[in-house]
Each structure stands twice: as structure tokens, then as C-alpha cells.
């Protein structure tokens, strides 16, 4: 995959070592990636990102607006994206529930944007200040209808910064909304974050169409990324709609056209999963037990893995940095080779369903679920590893 990148605009890059929390790092990552528009609505535990952006906006020349609700926030981001800006918003579960309406529109109209979900314990208003990983499925299946999404999950403030940039790059290239699924713990955790010099940061710029007007098409349905879009004011008189449309953007509401559009939307992500998926693996080769984890849970799992190794158990770690598309290929490869997958997560068992599906009965799968509100006790994960090794 050959994606054109340029160095970051120094205006948005606050280079140097910082001591900041994950929420702030998300805002800094977005600014470094060239995000110059942010519409949001405050919600705990994501407001720090929001506030950081508001404070930084004037010096960077970005626009920040607090909208009347999340419905409006995500809608304004769509408008701004077609106005020519890179856009981001941040929220958590209850706000994400309101946003899914227009995340669907963004997916359908192939509008690039980044949405951060700093997860808190639910359901409903739940425990606003307590951590969870309960919105994993919602990130993909939230909007109605079939659509493939990209979701990333950072495990530290540094990774919040790094993945914010990666999220923008993926969303620009594939023209798709990208969700960053972080959580309250990572969001509020203060750690060292090193922001590199602007010329060390690779950014995918907005790919704007420049050809003749009569050949302009806002879409190309070939299941690939890298297609140009346009922005308001460039004279191409684009039309975008949430209706099933042709490559010109005009509504064509037929079963045949729906097949063309949906196939493209799915294939552009699922068909390029090899290029998109990023995993952090440790001692998988020859492992009897593989702990599949992500986000804050993967940092808890480290302790359990270390203890298990001391006990002589061959344990590997597979940390999913990319949640969606799911690392289907890798799990299928490992299925049958390892005795057991242990899947700890701060929910009642969500990603474990994907692991089970791909393990296809060839390896045992143990779910270490937790209803959220706190992180796992490493002992519980260790116990599951021991059980999986039997």
C-alpha cells in the first residue's frame, strides 16, 4: 500500500516531552494530524479533549464549536468535512448513541472524520466516572444498515496521541469515519507523552480532486481507498446524499445500486484488513495460551502474563491496536496451534465473540469478563491462563 503522506503542519504540533492525560493527548494528536475543526458536546469522561481543543483552537487557527447536542456535533463535523477541513469529535457511550445516526450518514457519504469514544460504564447513564470497554460492538454495529468501520484502541496517553494521527490518516485514505475506542482510565491517566517534531510526523493530506468538472465524481465504487473527494467552493458542485446513490452522488434507489454501494463500503475496509490491522504481539510463537486483549485491559494482563510465565506456562500476548476490522486472519492462523485464547475485557463478553468465531472450535476460548467500573484483578486473568493451560 502506497499512501501519499506529507510532514505535519508545525502550527498544530506542540513538540517536546509532556506530562498529560490520554484525553489531552487525543486533542494534541488531532491537531498534529491537521484537524482544524472540532464540534462536540460535553460528556464525562471525555471533556478534557474538548476543553484542550477549545483552548488551542485560536492559536492554531482552528474552529471549535460546542453544539447543542451530540446529534448536532456529528452533523456539523460532516458539514465541515465537506467544507474542506479535517474534523474530530469526542464523546462516550451515551453521546455515541446519539451520534450513530450521522456516523451512518458519514459512512454512507464516505466522509472522513474521527470520533473518540472515551468509554464509561453503562448501560444508559451508568457510572459516568468509572471505566469500561462496553461499546466495542456499538462502534461497528451502532449505525443501522451494513457498514464497515475502522476502530482503534490505545492503551496509554502516548498511544492516544499516536493513534489519533493514525486514525486521521486511515479516515482520509479510506474516506470513512474512524472511531478511537479508549476508556476512562486511559483518558484520565497522566503519563509522559513525547510529541515529535512536525517533520517527523507523517500525515495523509486531504485528497482533493483537481480534474475537469465534467469528469468529477465524488465516489468510485471499487472497494478500494485512496479516491479523491472535493470541498465546497471548489466549483465542482458536488451532491452528497444519505440515499443510495451512483458515483455522481445522485440518488438511485434500486436493489442493484444498493448492492454496488454496500459491497463497496464493506470491501473498502474488510477487503483491505491486511493493510489496516495493527497488532502488538509478544511471544506468540510456541505459546500454549494466548491472551487477546486491548486498551487498558492489556496493561492489566501484562502482570498476569508475567506471573504465568514465572510458573512456567507458555503464554503469548496479542494486543489488538485495531479493533475493527477484526484481526480475523491472525486468530484463524493461531486457531488449533494454541490450546486456549484468554480474552479479558471490561464488558460482559463482546470481542470474545469474534475470537470464538475465528477460533472455530479449534482452540478453547475463555472469556474473562468484568462489568466495568474498575479494572480486572490480574489474579483473575492469571487464574484463567492456568485454566487454559490444562
Amino acid at each position: 500500500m502506497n499512501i501519499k503522506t506529507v510532514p505535519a503542519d508545525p502550527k498544530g504540533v506542540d513538540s517536546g516531552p509532556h506530562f498529560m492525560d490520554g484525553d489531552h493527548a487525543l486533542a494534541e494528536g488531532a491537531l498534529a494530524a491537521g484537524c482544524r475543526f472540532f464540534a462536540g458536546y460535553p460528556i464525562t469522561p471525555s471533556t478534557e479533549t474538548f476543553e484542550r481543543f477549545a483552548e488551542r483552537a485560536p492559536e492554531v487557527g482552528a474552529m471549535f464549536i460546542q453544539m447543542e447536542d451530540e446529534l448536532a456535533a456529528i452533523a456539523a463535523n460532516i458539514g465541515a468535512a465537506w467544507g474542506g477541513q479535517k474534523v474530530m469529535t469526542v464523546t462516550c457511550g451515551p453521546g455515541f448513541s446519539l451520534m450513530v445516526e450521522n456516523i451512518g450518514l458519514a459512512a454512507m457519504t464516505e466522509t472522513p472524520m474521527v470520533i473518540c469514544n472515551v468509554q464509561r460504564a453503562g448501560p444508559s447513564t451508568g457510572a459516568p466516572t468509572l471505566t469500561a470497554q462496553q461499546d466495542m460492538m456499538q462502534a461497528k454495529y451502532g449505525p443501522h444498515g451494513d457498514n464497515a468501520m475502522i476502530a482503534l484502541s490505545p492503551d496509554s496517553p502516548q498511544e492516544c496521541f499516536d493513534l489519533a494521527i493514525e486514525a486521521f490518516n486511515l479516515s482520509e485514505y479510506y474516506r470513512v469515519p474512524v472511531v478511537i475506542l479508549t476508556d476512562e482510565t486511559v483518558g484520565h491517566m497522566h503519563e509522559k507523552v513525547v510529541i515529535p517534531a512536525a517533520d517527523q510526523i507523517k500525515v495523509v493530506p486531504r485528497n482533493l480532486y483537481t480534474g475537469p468538472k465534467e469528469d468529477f465524481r465524488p465516489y468510485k465504487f471499487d472497494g478500494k481507498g485512496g479516491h479523491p473527494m472535493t470541498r465546497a467552493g471548489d466549483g465542482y458542485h458536488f451532491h452528497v446524499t444519505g440515499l443510495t446513490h451512483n458515483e455522481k452522488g445522485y440518488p438511485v434507489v434500486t436493489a442493484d445500486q444498493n448492492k454496488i454501494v454496500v459491497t463497496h463500503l464493506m470491501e473498502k475496509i474488510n477487503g483491505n484488513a491486511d493493510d489496516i490491522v495493527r497488532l502488538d504481539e509478544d511471544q506468540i510463537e510456541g505459546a500454549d495460551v494466548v491472551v487477546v486483549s486491548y486498551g487498558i485491559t492489556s496493561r492489566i494482563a501484562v502482570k498476569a502474563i508475567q506471573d504465568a510465565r514465572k510458573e512456567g506456562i507458555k503464554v503469548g500476548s496479542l494486543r489488538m491496536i485495531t479493533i475493527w476490522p477484526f484481526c480475523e486472519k491472525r486468530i484463524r492462523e493461531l486457531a488449533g496451534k494454541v490450546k486456549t485464547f484468554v480474552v479479558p475485557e471490561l464488558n460482559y463478553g463482546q470481542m470474545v465473540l469474534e475470537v470464538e468465531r475465528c477460533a472455530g472450535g479449534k482452540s478453547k476460548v475463555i472469556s474473562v469478563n468484568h462489568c466495568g467500573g474498575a479494572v480486572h484483578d490480574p489474579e483473575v486473568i492469571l487464574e484463567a491462563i492456568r485454566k487454559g493451560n490444562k
Partner: protein
Amino acid sequence: MSSDIAQFKKDSPMSGTLRMDRMSHIWCPGCGIGSEVNAFAEAVKRSGIDPDKLAVVSGIGCTGRVAGYVDFDSIHTTHGRAIPVATGLKLANPNMKVVVFSGEGDLTGIGGNHFIHAARRNMDIVVICNNNFTYGMTGGQVTPTTPHSAISSTTPFGNHEYPFNLPFLADAAGATYIARWTSMHSRNLIQSIEEALSRKGFSFIEIISPCTTLYLRRNRLGDGVDALQFYQESAVLKHGADTREADIDFQGKIVIGKFVDKNKPTYIEALDNRCVKVVGDDYELYGKTVPEREAEEKAEKERVAARRAAVMAEEEKKAKSEKGVTKISAKIPVKSAAKKTTTKVAKKVAPKTTAKATVTKVKVKAKSTAKTATSKVKAKTAAKTVAKKSVAKTPAKKTRK
């Protein structure tokens, strides 16, 4: 034949403002949206705005389809979200003139919150609201503006809710330009849209419009022409009217005119003012530096003036050849309207028969379906209104004079 149509589309005066490759449109015969879009296209031409710098955003519904037919940058959004999308577009790209064209259900029902907040912020957008008292696309349900007692598919016994008075709502929320017209008042509408396009701030134009297929049919109010005639009779022109008195009762008078036109810093101007005050000279105005902005505004003004002059010259030329038919004045349509009414009343001698026929029809239907007494009464009243309307034409005309 098809090449003839292609040529016709190419030669159309609307070519360049409407997407002729998307014609014909989906709107019903007699619907007001078509003439509104025509008025909008005409206003855009006259305003001298660069068509490349104009974007139209619509929501969902019959009026929501407008974005798909205008030949500008256009977005057809989800239900109710046209205003926030327009807000984002405007803020991301302040050089654009952004117009929201949608229906009253979309803008003030599901999108009501966005409507009042955009007005409150004095967001620099033009909101054109087609108010036909009905959710047309879904089959004629009651909307936030359906007059009390009007029949809709979800208020089969007549609407018992209290409707919004949209100019009052916009006024209370802080809109800086508010006008109301009916889809019959094309010239005033063109003028009003042109005015809104050439000013800054949140501009709201409500257009009372007939939904022939659903609202008129269900309420037995005749067809599109009857509706236009009704607008002519019941519209009361009152510039600067108190928006609190702009309520619309079922088949009652419709106050039209420009109600509010005031200056207030727009959202971006207010932001800049605030930041300049606090941050001082270090603050760069949003989107551009001061000299850049001034130069741009000056150049844009000159461009607009040149284009407007060209359009006006053409108009004049046309007017001369047509013996002054196209003279534009706000007062003219009202006067000529009154004249037309006289001739029409004189010509139509037997409107009573139609009314009678409707009454009998209603009775038969009411009996056969064994409806409740209330629905019978309702239907009768509706029919009576038709009769009343045709009888009471002359006094209505008198009061206007």
C-alpha cells in the same frame, strides 16, 4: 424526441442554477416547492452570488429533496440535521454562502433544537422553510405547525395540538432577519431571498405552501389553484408586524411580510471580537488575517455588484420587449392580486355547487364508514369552510382595499 428534451433542458432559463440532468423532479402537481425553488434560483441569479460559492443543505422529506436539484454544492442530510451540517460547512469554509432549504417538520420538529440554537448564535446562514402543515413524504401526518383542528393522517379527528408560530419562534431565539410569504407571492419571495442572501446573520424565510396530495385533499380544500386563491384572499401584508401576532389558524388570515431585519455580529464575528478583546493583537481573525479579509470582502462586493448589474440590464432589456411586465416592486403583487381576485370571482359563478357536492360526498362517506359524531361534524365543518370561502370572497377583497 429525447434529443428535444435534452435541448429543452439545455435551453431552460434554469440551466446553471438547477441540475437539469436530474429533471423531472418528484414533487406533485400543485405542490408549492417547485415555485419556491424557481424563486430561489431566480433570487440567486439576481443576487450576483458566485454559484461556486453557494451551498445548499437540506434535511429529509419532500422539501429535503431540494438539495438534489440545485446546481450548487449540495448536501442531502439526515432528518432534522440540515442546520448543524450547514453550520459546520459555514464555519469550516467561511467564504461560502450557505442556504438551508427544508420543510417545517424537518426544521422545527425533529430539528427544532438546531433551529433555535443556530438562530441564537446568529449563525451566518439562510434558512428557507417550506411550511405546508404536513409531513408529505411519509403520508400526511401532523406537524408542529399544522393549524388547530386541521385533519391529518395522525389527527383524523382534527389536530388538537397547538401549533408553532415560526416567525415568533425565530424572533425569540434571536434570528436577525425574519420574513414570511406564501408560495403565491413569488416576486416578494424572490426579493426576500435575494435580500437574505446579500446580508449577514441568521435569516429565516417561511413560505406557506400547499400540499395538494395530502393536506388539501384531507381537509377538502381543493387543489393547488384553490390554495393560491386562498393565499391571495387571506394573506395580509404587514411589514414589521409583531411576530407574536403571526399565528395561523385553520384557513385563517396569513400575516406576510418582512418582520425582522436587524444587525448583530454573526457567530464568527462575535468569536473574533471576543478573542481580539482578550488575546489582543496576537489573535488572528478566524480563517484569515484582517487585510486578507478586507481585500476579499471588497473584491466579492465588486464581483457581486458587476454580476447584479449584468442581470438587471438583462431584466430591463426583457422588460422593454415585454412592455414592462417584469417591473419589480414589493407592492405590485398585492395590488395585482386584488385585481385578479375580482376577475376570478366574476368568472366563477357556481363555486357553491362544488361545495355542495363535497358536502354530500362527505356525508355519504361518513355514513358508510359509520364514523364517530365528531368526525362527521369535523368533515361538515371542513366542507362548510369550502363553501364559506367561496361565498365570502367579496368581503375579503373589500377589507384588503
